[in-house]
C-alpha cells in the first residue's frame, strides 16, 4: 500500500482521556482495571470502565442518539483537539471527500437491554422513548459522528467483533487508494454492556482479577471500553519525522471455530504475513509487536505460536490489555493509538499485571517498559468468527 499519515489521533479508555493521560499511564505502568461495579452487574470480574461516561447526557439537539456508546464517542472526539482537526480536514479536502469508518461490536445495545427491563407489563411493548436507529443499530455510532461533525462522505461501521476497529484502517486505505476520498476518520467505539459481560462470563472467559496476558496463571479477559480515533491522509509537505504512518494492513479468517482461535494461530499468521507483504517489509523490520493478548489461555497460546512462526522468538512484544482491559470492537483502534504513542515516544509498553510469563509461550514477552528507538510496530486484533487483522505503523522519519 501507499503509506498514509495519521495526521491526528486520540484515545479515551480506563487509562486516560486523551493521549497525554494515556501516555502517562503507560509510562507509569498503571492499570485502569478495577472490580466490576458497572450497572447492576455483580460478576466476580474486573473491568476497564471509563469514569463518568454517564455523568452527562448528550445535549438536547442529539437526544435521539443519547446512550452510553455515543456519550463515549462524544467524550473521545473532544480530546486532543480531534474534532477541530477533522473540521479542518473537512474544509481542506471538502466535506464529501472525507470518509468515516468506525468499528464497534455492540454499539448502544445497553440502551436496548435497559428498555427490555421497562417493557409495558400488559402489551410487552418497549418504552416509547427507545430510539432503535439512534442507539441500538450497529451503525448508530457512525450516524451520530457523521451528523455531529457534519461529514458528507461515505460512512460505514465495520463490525467484526474484536477486530472491527483495526479493519477500518484497511477499508479507509482502500477507498483513499481508489481516490473516492482524500481523507478518512477511522476509529472504534465500544462500551460496557450486559451482553458482553454476561456473555464472556457464560463462556468462562472472564478473569476473576485483573487480566494477566501471557502469565502462566492467566485466567481470562477483563472487559474494557474505549473511543479511539485517527485521521488518515496522504502524507504532505507538513508531514514531519515525528509523524506516524500507516504502512500495511493484513486481514484473514481462521475458518476454524466461532469462539475459539485456531490452536496454531493459522489465521493470525496469515494476517501478519499479509500486513508485512502489504508494507513491503521483512519480519526483521518490526521493532515491537502490540499483541492482541487477551489473557485467555488459548488465545495467548495461539497468538504466541503465530508470532514466533513469523518473527522468531526475539522480537519484543506485549499486550496492553492488562492496563486497558479488552475494549472489544474498539481494541484495534485503541491499540493503534498506543502503538503510535510508542513510536513517537521511543517506548515499548510493558505488559502490566503479568508476573510470571508462561515459559511455554515462545514469543519474547516484555513485562516492563523499555526505552528504545522504534521505527516500525505491528499491532494485532483478532475476533470471534475467526476474523483477524494486523496493522503496521511506522515513524515518518
Amino acid at each position: 500500500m501507499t503509506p498514509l499519515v495519521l495526521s491526528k489521533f486520540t484515545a479515551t479508555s480506563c487509562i486516560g482521556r486523551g493521549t497525554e493521560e494515556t501516555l502517562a499511564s503507560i509510562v507509569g505502568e498503571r492499570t485502569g482495571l478495577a472490580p466490576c461495579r458497572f450497572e447492576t452487574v455483580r460478576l466476580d470480574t474486573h473491568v476497564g470502565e471509563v469514569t463518568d461516561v454517564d455523568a452527562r447526557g448528550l445535549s438536547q439537539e442529539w437526544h435521539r442518539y443519547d446512550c452510553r456508546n455515543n456519550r463515549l464517542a462524544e467524550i473521545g472526539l473532544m480530546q486532543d483537539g480531534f474534532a477541530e482537526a477533522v473540521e479542518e480536514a473537512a474544509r481542506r479536502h471538502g466535506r464529501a471527500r472525507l470518509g468515516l469508518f468506525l468499528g464497534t461490536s455492540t454499539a448502544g445495545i445497553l440502551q436496548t437491554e435497559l428498555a427490555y427491563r421497562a417493557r409495558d407489563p400488559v402489551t410487552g411493548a418497549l418504552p416509547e422513548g427507545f430510539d432503535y436507529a439512534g442507539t441500538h443499530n450497529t451503525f448508530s455510532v457512525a450516524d451520530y459522528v457523521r451528523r455531529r461533525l457534519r461529514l458528507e462522505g461515505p460512512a460505514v461501521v465495520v463490525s467484526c467483533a474484536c477486530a472491527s476497529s483495526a479493519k477500518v484502517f484497511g477499508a479507509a486505505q482502500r477507498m483513499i487508494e481508489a481516490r473516492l476520498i482524500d481523507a478518512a476518520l477511522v476509529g472504534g467505539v465500544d462500551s460496557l454492556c450486559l451482553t458482553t459481560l454476561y456473555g464472556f462470563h457464560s463462556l468462562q472467559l472472564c478473569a476473576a482479577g485483573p487480566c494477566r496476558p501471557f502469565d502462566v496463571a492467566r485466567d481470562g479477559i477483563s472487559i474494557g471500553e474505549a473511543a479511539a480515533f485517527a485521521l488518515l491522509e496522504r502524507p504532505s509537505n507538513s508531514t514531519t519525522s515525528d509523524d506516524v504512518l500507516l504502512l500495511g494492513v493484513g486481514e484473514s479468517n481462521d475458518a476454524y471455530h466461532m469462539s475459539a482461535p485456531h490452536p496454531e494461530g493459522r489465521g493470525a499468521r496469515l494476517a501478519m504475513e499479509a500486513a508485512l507483504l502489504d508494507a513491503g517489509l521483512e519480519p526483521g523490520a518490526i521493532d515491537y509487536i502490540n499483541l492482541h493478548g487477551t489473557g485467555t489461555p488459548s488465545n495467548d497460546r495461539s497468538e504466541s505460536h503465530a508470532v514466533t512462526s513469523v518473527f522468531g522468538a526475539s522480537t519484543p512484544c506485549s499486550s496492553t490489555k492488562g492496563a486497558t482491559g479488552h475494549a472489544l470492537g474498539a481494541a484495534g483502534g485503541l491499540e493503534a493509538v498506543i502503538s503510535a504513542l510508542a513510536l513517537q515516544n521511543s517506548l515499548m509498553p510493558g505488559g502490566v499485571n503479568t508476573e510470571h510469563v508462561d515459559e511455554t509461550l515462545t514469543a519474547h514477552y516484555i513485562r516492563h517498559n523499555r526505552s528504545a528507538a522504534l521505527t516500525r510496530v505491528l499491532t494485532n486484533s483478532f475476533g470471534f468468527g475467526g476474523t483477524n487483522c494486523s496493522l503496521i505503523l511506522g515513524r515518518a522519519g
Partner: protein
Amino acid sequence: MKIEAYVAGIGVLGPGLDGWPGSRGVLAGDRPYAPVPTVLPVPTLLSATERRRTGRVIRLALAIAAEAVAHAGLDASKLRSVFTSSTGDGQNCHELCETLAEPAPEISPTRFANSVHNAAAGYWSIATSAMQPSTVLCAFDGSFCAGLLEALVQVAVDEERILLVSYDADYPPPMFAKRPVPDAFGTALVLTPQREPGSLARLEARLCNEPFDRLTQPLEALRSSNPAARSVPLLRHLAIGAGARAVLEYLEGSSLAVDIEPCA
C-alpha cells in the same frame, strides 16, 4: 480509478423470490410479483452440530452466498468476502435481551457467540474453509450500498474476485415495532476484476447526490421494507439484461449510481 467490476454470479432469496433463475422473470417485470413468506433452507454446508446453532439470518446468508458462488462456478475457499447487514440476527438479539432483563441472567454461550454482527461470515468461512480476508459492515438502510461500494473498491484496488452478501431479516416483537422489517430478504453477488467467460454484466459505480430510484408497486414495498432489498433496482436491471443505470439508496445526501452494461 474506475470503480468497476463484472458480475459472475447472483443469489437471491426473499418473499416470493426463491433463487435467481426463478426470480429473474418477476424482477424483469415479465411475470407478476406474488410475495409469499420467505422459506429459508437448512444450511447443508454446515456440520449437524453447527447447523443446530444457526438461526434464520445465518441460513439466509449462507443460502444466497452458496447460490451466487455456484452460479459463478468458483471455489468459495478462494474468495474474499464482504457481508453487510443492518440488523444481524434479530431473533438471537431479542432472546439475549429477554434473558438479560432477568434479575440474575444466565445466557447461553452459543447465543452470545452468535450475537456478533459477523456471525454469518464466521459460519460461511468455517463451512467453506475460506481464509481470505472478509469484512462485515453496517450502514442501517444504506447497508447494501455500503457493502457494494466496499466490494467494488476491493476489486478495483486489489484486483481480486470477491463475494458480496447482503441480508436482513425480521425482528420478533417487541423490537419489530421499533424496526418493522416484515420478512427475510438477501442477495449475493460474485464480482470479478476482469470479464470472464460467464460474466453477466459490467458494473461501474460512483457516489452522487442524486435522488435514489424508487420502483413501482409491489416491488417498491419490498425495496423500502428491508435494508438488503435496497438492491432490488440493481437486480431488476440485471434481470432485464439491457444497459441501464440504477441510483441506489445509501446515506442521507448521498446515493450510489451504478451503470449496468450486460456482457451477452
